[in-house]
């Protein structure tokens, strides 16, 4: 452990090119997929939590099922879609970062929606009364919901981001762990382990956790400014 830690520090301070590249791909991918998942998931979650429409319960159950979808299954589906003989082959998304982002969006959106739904359901009745009292329109009510959920949204975002950064099943299938292109921290750790280079694997693990800690500290600090 101590050697791996030293190795991790060495790598960071030496600005190891491979490491920086892997880190850059990891961050690019996780930020893109978690932000997109937030964009799709939050409205969906609020809708599921507050609106009333036929089939809502079924949708909630389906969404909860999707929350538990194993990443490898998601990866396999995307692989079959994007692969050279797949229906979406012309998009040329296999073994690209964009392909990985799409797989992760499919994986994370249900999680975002599923965490927002019970929260929205809990705050909705009060907000609706307020809105009725003030004579606000539906659009304004939705906006009010979003504003009231800021704190929850940030927490949910962190959940999605961690999922994106830590996930390996889907990205290794869709990304193929191609060096200098789609190799991210988790797939690189797998590669190094397979080569018997445990020190390097552990060092990458430590760096990944440290990056995650830094991001969490920053966003949590920002979150405190959101009022709750």
């Amino acid at each position, binding site marked *: 452990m101590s050697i791996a830690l030293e190795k991790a520090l060495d790598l960071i301070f030496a600005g190891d090119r491979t490491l920086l590249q892997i880190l850059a791909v990891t961050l690019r991918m996780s930020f893109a997929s978690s932000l997109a998942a937030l964009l799709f998931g939050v409205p969906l979650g609020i809708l599921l939590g507050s609106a009333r429409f036929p089939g809502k319960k079924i949708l909630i159950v389906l969404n909860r099922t999707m929350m538990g979808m194993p990443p490898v299954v998601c990866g396999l589906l995307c692989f079959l879609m994007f692969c050279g003989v797949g229906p979406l082959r012309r998009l040329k998304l296999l073994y690209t970062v964009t392909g990985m982002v799409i797989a992760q969006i499919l994986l994370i959106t249900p999680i975002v929606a599923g965490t927002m739904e019970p929260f929205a359901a809990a705050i909705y009745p009060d907000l609706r009364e307020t809105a009725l009292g003030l004579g606000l329109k539906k659009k304004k009510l939705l906006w009010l919901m979003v504003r009231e959920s800021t704190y929850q949204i940030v927490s949910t975002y962190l959940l999605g981001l961690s999922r994106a950064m830590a996930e390996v099943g889907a990205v290794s299938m869709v990304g193929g762990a191609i060096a200098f292109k789609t190799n991210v921290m988790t797939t690189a750790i797998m590669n190094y382990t*397979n080569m018997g280079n445990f020190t390097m694997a552990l060092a990458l693990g430590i760096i990944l956790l440290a990056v995650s800690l830094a991001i969490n500290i920053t966003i949590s600090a920002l979150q405190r400014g959101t009022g709750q």
Partner: protein
Amino acid sequence: MKKLFTVLLAMAMMLSFAACKDQNTPPDDSIIDVNLEILIEQDDSMINTYSLLAVNDAAPFEDADGNPVSDVTLNTQGADALINWLLSEEGKELAANFGYDEYGQYLFYLLDDGASSDAEIPQATEETKLIRMSTTTSVNDSGLLGYLIPKFEEAYGYKVEIFSAGTGKAIANAKCGNADLILVHAKAQEEDFIKAGFARTLEGQNAERLSYMYNYFVLCGPPDDPVGVKGMSVTDAFAAIAEQGAKFVSRGDGSGTHTKELSLWPQQLGISEDPTSFADYDWYISSNAGMGACLLQASEQGAYILSDKATFLTFVANGGKVES
């Protein structure tokens, strides 16, 4: 409250980091001990031949439902360039010398009558720039491709994307139209691939399967060798392992090494890819994992294992010491 918690957490992490640093470094610098040693090697039946195959862009590609797909795009010119370079004098010499400086042994040898090429290699163009190569873990994890490919890329301006998995998966990947060429090591699977029309013959070559280098499969096991396979022929050794019921870790993943291993067991045991064929043998551990993971498992369990020599040497070198 939260602020306090965050600060506490950060402090706890710092402290644990510091505590790690204070500990004395273990004397041998090793994270794990690889408790395995090569017991049988350089037996003629253990030759492990690597072949290059260019994927045919007019191959009978099928989608997941078995419907024909006719418009799979492959970079045939790029594949030709890379194959011709790997088979050129320069490429072959580099491959043959690889690993000596690092491991004190050659990891790959050239076949005497192996394929070779003196075709001119064109510079990359915008359309032919990206080459997708599907290959086995042994040539990638041992570092061979990491050593060769940058030299090729630099000289001719191509960009090679390497996807590495067991031979079975590497070939399946090519059948899905995800690779322009493959470098694999399982003759029977390669021949099926050719028979199904997925390979093509390069200009100036007389076969689809371009075998050009080899190394050896090695039978590894615990250094005290409880079965006493040292000095035996490989087939006798496998028979003895089975007879004594000594633990054996199998890749079990359709890789080239797995294919080789299946051919070495005595016929009457009936061991095949089918899991029911070895369900009664509690000593036979089918692990369905990469070479590295299997070596680790064998080492932990004191089991015997078949490995390609290159991966074994790199694995032990990496696991036994911390490289600077």
